[in-house]
């Protein structure tokens, strides 16, 4: 497949996608970079002036920044761990024969189709609300004190909501991977005397490694920019307990309309995202053999 002809064609066919994405990335990024060196409050047009790195100084010394950094990592990490472990469990379960497998599968994948805004609204108001939510009703029914999820365990609650949304995705990919496992390999292990646990550890888990990589990669992309769930449920609070980098940038540029500061935050977020990207590609992209 490698004649000069096809290589030229390849370059031409790549071009639209590459050019568009470059434009999509570079143009706003350049503008953002420029704004980040300005005093630029949307509410005070005409007062823009070059202030050098002042915006960065403020953003990076904001105590909320470190909280946000930690929260972002906790959110991404927590959801990844939960969705992957839960996904493996569900995939193993859905791979077994039982009655109504098709329907259960539909039930399990359903959350993936729900808009983040809707799921956040539903969880916050109808399930987790400590007074009129369903969990509170259940707790009261059992004679327990209702738990105030979003106030007492805000980040965990958000992790729970986001996990609920992404669990189906992880399950589907892991299930497909599991079903691609050569049955003869499992039988060979069985002949070799491996029990169910040994087969899981030594055969199934390594086989799922690649799928876990993919799940990690894709979910990280989406989890880094989790936003609607936070906006709807906690507005980043209480305090900064659920402020992630995305939300912090949002607060800066769209609640305070400090475009300069928000842009500086945006650039910082871009740098961080790229660090994560490089890390991901290095650590696990290799595993993908693309």
């Amino acid at each position: 497949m490698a004649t000069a002809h096809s290589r030229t064609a390849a370059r031409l066919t790549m071009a639209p996608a590459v050019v568009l994405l470059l434009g999509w990335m570079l143009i706003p990024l350049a503008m953002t970079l420029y704004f980040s060196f300005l005093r630029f409050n949307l509410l005070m047009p005409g007062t823009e002036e070059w202030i050098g790195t002042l915006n960065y100084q403020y953003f990076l010394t904001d105590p909320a920044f470190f909280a946000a950094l930690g929260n972002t990592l906790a959110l991404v990490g927590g959801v990844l761990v939960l969705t992957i472990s839960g996904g493996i469990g569900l995939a193993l379960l859905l791979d077994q024969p039982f009655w109504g497998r098709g329907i259960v599968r539909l039930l399990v994948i359903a959350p993936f189709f729900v808009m983040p805004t809707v799921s956040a609204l539903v969880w916050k108001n109808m399930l987790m609300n400590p007074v009129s939510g369903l969990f509170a009703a259940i707790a009261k029914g059992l004679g327990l004190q209702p738990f105030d999820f979003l106030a007492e365990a805000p980040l965990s609650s958000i992790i729970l909501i986001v996990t609920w949304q992404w669990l189906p995705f992880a399950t589907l990919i892991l299930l497909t991977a599991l079903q691609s496992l050569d049955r003869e390999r499992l039988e060979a292990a069985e002949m070799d005397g491996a029990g169910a646990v040994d087969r899981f550890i030594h055969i199934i888990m390594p086989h799922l490694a690649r799928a876990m990589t993919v799940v990690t990669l894709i979910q990280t992309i989406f989890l880094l920019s989790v936003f609607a769930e936070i906006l709807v449920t906690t507005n980043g609070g209480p305090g900064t307990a659920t402020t992630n980098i995305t939300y912090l940038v949002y607060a800066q540029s769209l609640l305070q309309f400090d475009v300069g500061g928000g842009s500086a935050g945006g650039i910082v977020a871009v740098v961080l995202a790229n660090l994560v990207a490089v890390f991901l590609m290095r650590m696990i992209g290799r595993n993908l053999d693309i």
Partner: protein
Amino acid sequence: MGQITLDRVTKSFGDVSVIPPLDLTIGNGEFVVFVGPSGCGKSTLLRLIAGLEDVSSGTIRIDGKDATALPPAQRGLAMVFQSYALYPHMTVRNNIAFPLKMARLDKAAIDRKVEAAANVLNLTNYLDRRPGQLSGGQRQRVAIGRAIVREPTAFLFDEPLSNLDAALRVNMRLEISELHASLGTTMIYVTHDQVEAMTMADKIVVLNAGRIEQVGSPIDLYSRPRNRFVAGFIGSPRMNFIEGEAARGDGADCVGIRPEHLLLSTESGRWSGTVTVSEHLGSDTFVYVQVDGIGTMVARAGGEFPVRHGDRVWLTPQTEKLHRFDAQGNAQASPVHGVKVA
């Protein structure tokens, strides 16, 4: 020890009966080959013995003990799969060591056994590679290594060489035969390759639609096939069958003659016809002849036999090598008495 007895074993998948009641005894140390057309139940039978499938009814005894309900790991058998079924994420060493680890052997013993097996199989230099970095033949050897280390009472092979290319297949065939000679362990081997069956087996089991058509030594089956199915199935190129008037002359509903038992002549003989294709291998020549009134027959000539498309040739059977079958396809009173050196 390694005696395996199947007693009225049957197997159905849902409503489909794949193995009708079947009896078979495999003696200790024997090399038994299952052959038969695709889908006849060879793999199923092997998997029943391995314990990877449950029998629908009947009993499987291994060394006299009832093993029908034992899980695979406890039957003391080792299996080599067609796809090799190696663990792709483990090194060769760990692949081979896996059954030993599962048996919770201590590290020193495992190392010793793995080294020994690698030695036998010429894998010592590859112990730290992954299966993905090995050639087909090497992979197959790893699969065998994994089976050997367990010191099983019997080995089960399901078409272990069918993914290899011709040259390699010859080598691996010899290696497995030598392994059998040196270990002396019972081996059950599924194949659809003529040559493998003929050259490796102590005993061939010919299966057809789950039934056993004939059991015997390779030479037995070659020279005294019990019926047309076996006669046609064993031997390559396959036996020429002659029916109708021409067969009636030899006192049977159908007579069969193998290509290597037909004498070719450019001058005279019993049947005459024209050459359609002649295949010149150097060592042999196979001549496809359109025989008048009978159909296409294949004959083998040793070395180089200079005929080409369209030439007229004559064929004469070695009469003592004629096989006679009745209308049901069963062999009539055996015409061949003993086998002579050609």
